[in-house]
């Protein structure tokens, strides 16, 4: 029988290895899988390459993972945040590497990995410093650059509802990178507020079909990053 539900966040991230590439969902705090990230901090894996749109805020969640020096490199479109000194500090002292990727190219590279497309052309970033060193080519009179697929060993994702097959629904703009990171990762780990019986989710409205999801963890009342930051919390 198929049952992808895992008892705890700790169990779900237990096999993340040193040097793994880990995609972390979320756009700002929306969709940030705080409990899974904290479980990963507890677990202790180091030298990670993290793929995430932002670099976290305060000293919880993704910012705490960075602060605890578990992240060797971050692939990111917008690492600058209002409420964090964590990333800038490590970046300026050369203790974390940054690969800056335009947000749409980041999304498409992730989607490409999930879709078995090794490389594609895009006009985004043509003629800018972010195109330096990239192959360029003209199609129908317009210049494009070649971008490669971006895959991961693990993804940490926040959903709303899941089932034992791994079907996932998301909440509003917390959907963002979740569905494509699930596609692009060998082990997509999704925290949801509720695991429901198979068949409860209408097959017409499934956002992440179960085939893209390997592990589901129920976190009934997930923390919001902004609330933790406002309360001055620091993890661990």
């Amino acid at each position, binding site marked *: *029988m*198929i049952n992808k539900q895992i008892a705890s966040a700790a169990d779900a991230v237990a096999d993340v290895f040193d040097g793994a590439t880990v995609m972390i969902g979320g756009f700002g705090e929306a969709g940030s899988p705080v409990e899974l990230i904290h479980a990963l901090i507890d677990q202790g894996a180091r030298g990670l390459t993290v793929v995430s749109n932002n670099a976290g805020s305060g000293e919880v969640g993704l910012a705490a993972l960075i602060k605890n020096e578990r992240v060797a490199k971050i692939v990111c479109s917008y690492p600058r945040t209002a409420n964090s000194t964590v990333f800038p500090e490590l970046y300026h002292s050369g203790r974390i590497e940054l690969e800056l990727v335009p947000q749409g190219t980041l999304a498409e590279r992730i*989607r490409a*990995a*999930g*879709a*078995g*497309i090794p490389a594609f052309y895009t006009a985004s970033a043509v003629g800018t410093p972010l195109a330096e060193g990239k192959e360029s080519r003209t199609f129908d009179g317009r210049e494009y650059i070649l971008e490669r697929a971006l895959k991961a060993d693990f993804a940490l994702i926040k959903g709303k509802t899941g*089932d*034992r*097959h791994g*079907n996932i629904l998301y909440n509003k703009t917390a959907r963002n990178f979740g569905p494509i990171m699930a*596609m692009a990762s060998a082990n997509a780990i999704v925290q949801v507020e509720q695991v429901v*019986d*198979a*068949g409860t*989710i209408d*097959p*017409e409205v*499934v956002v992440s*079909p*179960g*085939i*893209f999801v390997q592990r589901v963890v129920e976190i009934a009342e997930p923390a919001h990053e902004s609330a933790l930051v406002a309360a001055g919390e620091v993890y661990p």
Partner: protein
Amino acid sequence: MSSTPTVIGRTREEMAQRLAQDIPDGSYVNLGIGIPELVAKFVPEGRELVYHTENGLLGMGPSPEGAGDPELINAGKRHVTAIPGASFFHHADSFSMIRGGHIDLCVLGALQIACNGDLANWSTGTPDAIPAVGGAMDLVAGVKSIYVITQHCTKDGEPKLVESCTYPLTGCGVVNRIYSDLAVVDVTPDGFRVVELSPGVEFEYVRERTGAPLLPPETDH
């Protein structure tokens, strides 16, 4: 020996049944049109497989009893059902599952299989045939394991397991294993190797009906 049976080896159902034994619990499986479709009937008790059909359904169930829904069909355009836990999606997402390596196993028919794993199953290359490929090339290129279920020889007695395909290819070096009426045959770096002979079938009998060198089953050490 005038009582020699006219049928030697496995029937279509038995081939499907034999293959079904080898699919691990929890696999995501795409079954091609024809004999491959029979496999679903023979999955051993206690194993749960999830069937993908490339026209946009994961969690395909059996054909409905009674009238079907013309908008709930499989790749063979037959009416099917959706199991609890199923999902519908569009064609680009469906082939992302295929091309992206998310499906564990695809079972297909074949015109020819070469000893290097090349598969020809979409066209006989005759000039008057209407060429039609469907999703076969995407499936063999993207799915993790490709099993072929086929008669060992054509109706004319020609081997389907060959040195090199003469029909147009579906994919290069893609076939992992063949379930024929006569044997289960692996495609190995050394060529075709019998994994298991069908009941009552001798190795030599299969070898004579195979168009490329055939290695005997590996002996246990």
